[in-house]
């Protein structure tokens, strides 16, 4: 329809943007790796393989997408590779034992991203088989209640993982995408009714179309919370769901009711669960127990202070004082070694991913499912990042979710990449 000449110039400028950003990301990762080697005093250590794997992933991904998905968003892939490459280096620095495994997961994740982005029927299948997917996801979740384990092997730790032989997989990560896709396709079907002009709003209030899924989701969150003690995932599901419902319907009362329900659930959980009580107490005032139960959060705050504006330099700070820093507290480690500058770059990069996702949603607004799916995936990344960054900074009670792309965790990395793959696919869809 539109002549090829026109699109070729536009496509090549997109490719240029992507390549320049990937080049910058690669340079930063290389400099960080060199600095890490020098700081460790072993210039030719084996962590160089990380850089080559990263280069192969970045260049390969860019070339494959230029060939098979020429009209994709030029920012999403470099941002993802930048953050995940940075994450791999930080894991190498903080917990060298896990670095190789994370590299393997990175390769698997990039391949999955490309597969999801290029495969043309993915979006249709997400819609067609939504009930099957939902039942499957819920079955996986229930199976963790029965068969679940914790890689750390501690007694009493939340058992959110399934041992699948080659490693541990966290089904709630996959369930995130399945739920967002399910809700997007459900709400897209209800779109004409939700958006009908001149309907009786008082009756819409009470329509099972709206409170049906609300109750379902709320029940699901309660199950996750009560049986799994997985506070972060429960609150994440609920916030993303409320946002989706608000965007689909446009009623402000949904946001108010949602906030009230979260507060109510918080109060009940505070009185019922010792975990929640602990988290809220040490958020309120961690200092009386700085050596005890609040040790992690206090060390995190000290790491931020030690980092200052420009940071200690990679390998030269001491983020190791924070227990399990390589997963939930990755943001604190970045802040200590790269300073406020590094934190700002992390926040800006994640925010940019979210902005591009919402931009895709606006471009796709004539296709309700595509728009809602893009909004849902962006909100997942945004909410999860805000929850953990706010928690690490003691701006809100700590909820144990990972920082997307940066934290150690195979299923988290894989599912974040799949989300980006879906967003890339959506951004290349015809308007």
């Amino acid at each position, binding site marked *: 329809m*539109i*002549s090829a*000449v026109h699109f070729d110039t536009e496509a090549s400028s997109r490719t240029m943007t992507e390549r320049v950003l990937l080049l910058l990301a690669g340079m*930063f990762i290389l400099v960080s790796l060199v*600095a890490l080697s*020098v700081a460790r005093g072993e210039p030719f250590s084996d962590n160089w393989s990380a850089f080559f794997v990263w280069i192969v992933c970045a260049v390969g991904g860019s070339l494959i997408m230029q060939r098979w998905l020429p009209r994709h968003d030029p920012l999403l892939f470099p941002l993802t590779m930048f953050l995940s490459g940075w994450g791999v280096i930080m894991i190498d620095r903080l917990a060298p034992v896990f670095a190789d495994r994370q590299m393997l997961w990175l390769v698997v994740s990039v391949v999955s991203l490309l597969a999801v982005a290029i495969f043309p029927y993915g979006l249709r299948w997400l819609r067609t088989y939504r009930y099957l997917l939902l039942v499957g996801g819920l079955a996986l979740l229930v199976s963790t209640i029965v068969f679940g384990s914790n890689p750390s092997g501690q007694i009493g730790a939340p058992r959110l993982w399934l041992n699948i032989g080659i490693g541990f997989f966290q089904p709630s990560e996959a369930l995130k995408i399945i739920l967002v896709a399910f809700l997007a396709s459900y709400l897209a079907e209800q779109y004409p009714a939700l958006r009908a002009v001149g309907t009786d709003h008082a009756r819409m209030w009470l329509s099972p179309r709206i409170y049906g899924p609300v109750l379902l989701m709320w029940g699901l969150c309660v199950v996750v919370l009560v049986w799994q003690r997985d506070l972060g995932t429960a609150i994440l599901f609920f916030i993303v769901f409320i946002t989706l419902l608000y965007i689909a319907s446009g009623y402000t009362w949904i946001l108010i009711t949602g906030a009230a329900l979260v507060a109510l659930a918080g109060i009940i959980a505070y009185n019922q669960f010792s975990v929640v009580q602990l988290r809220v107490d040490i958020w309120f005032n961690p200092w009386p127990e700085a050596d005890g139960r609040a040790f992690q959060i206090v060390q995190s705050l000290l790491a931020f202070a030690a980092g200052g504006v420009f940071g200690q*330099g990679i390998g030269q700070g001491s983020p190791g004082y924070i227990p399990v820093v390589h997963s939930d507290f990755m943001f604190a480690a970045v802040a200590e070694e790269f300073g406020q*500058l590094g934190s700002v770059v992390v926040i800006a990069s994640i925010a940019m991913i979210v902005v591009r996702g919402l931009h895709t949603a606006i471009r796709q607004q004539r296709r309700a499912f595509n728009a809602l799916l893009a909004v849902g995936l962006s909100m997942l990344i945004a909410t999860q990042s805000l929850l953990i960054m706010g928690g690490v900074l003691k701006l809100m009670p700590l909820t144990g979710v990972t920082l997307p792309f940066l934290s150690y965790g195979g299923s988290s990395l894989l599912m974040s990449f799949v989300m980006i793959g879906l967003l890339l696919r959506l951004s290349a869809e015809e308007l």
Partner: protein
Amino acid sequence: MGTDVILFVLRLTAGVLLMVWLGALFVVMWRDYRSAVQEAQASRRTYGQLIGLREIDGSYLRTGQIYPLLSLTSIGRAPTNTITVDDNFASNEHAFVALRNGQWWLEDRRSRNGTTLNGMMVKQPIVITDGDVIGIGQLRFQLELDR
């Protein structure tokens, strides 16, 4: 002492690269915003007119109808077109007149009776200039560009 200096230089480089990264993101977003604004303005801007003509005995007479020329002007019988024509020999989605890379192109949208340019059938997209006459069914349009 040597290691300290190297580490300091590397820290500096890493910091500068982080700032360049932020700057690059900003530039990309800014360019994206500018082109979105331009696109929005371009779709509303008119570049000239299409003057309605009628062909009688080999000479053209003005019908008095003048249509604004947009960067993408569609002609056809369907009401969704930029120029809706009421002609039995025109198709619902008949033809495009579009500005691409500084040139005006005429493109037939696989209409049943075809589109003509100065009396000749248009088989594939073709560049048109000021004064050319486009034929849709029994109707004729003369391209008049703003200077």
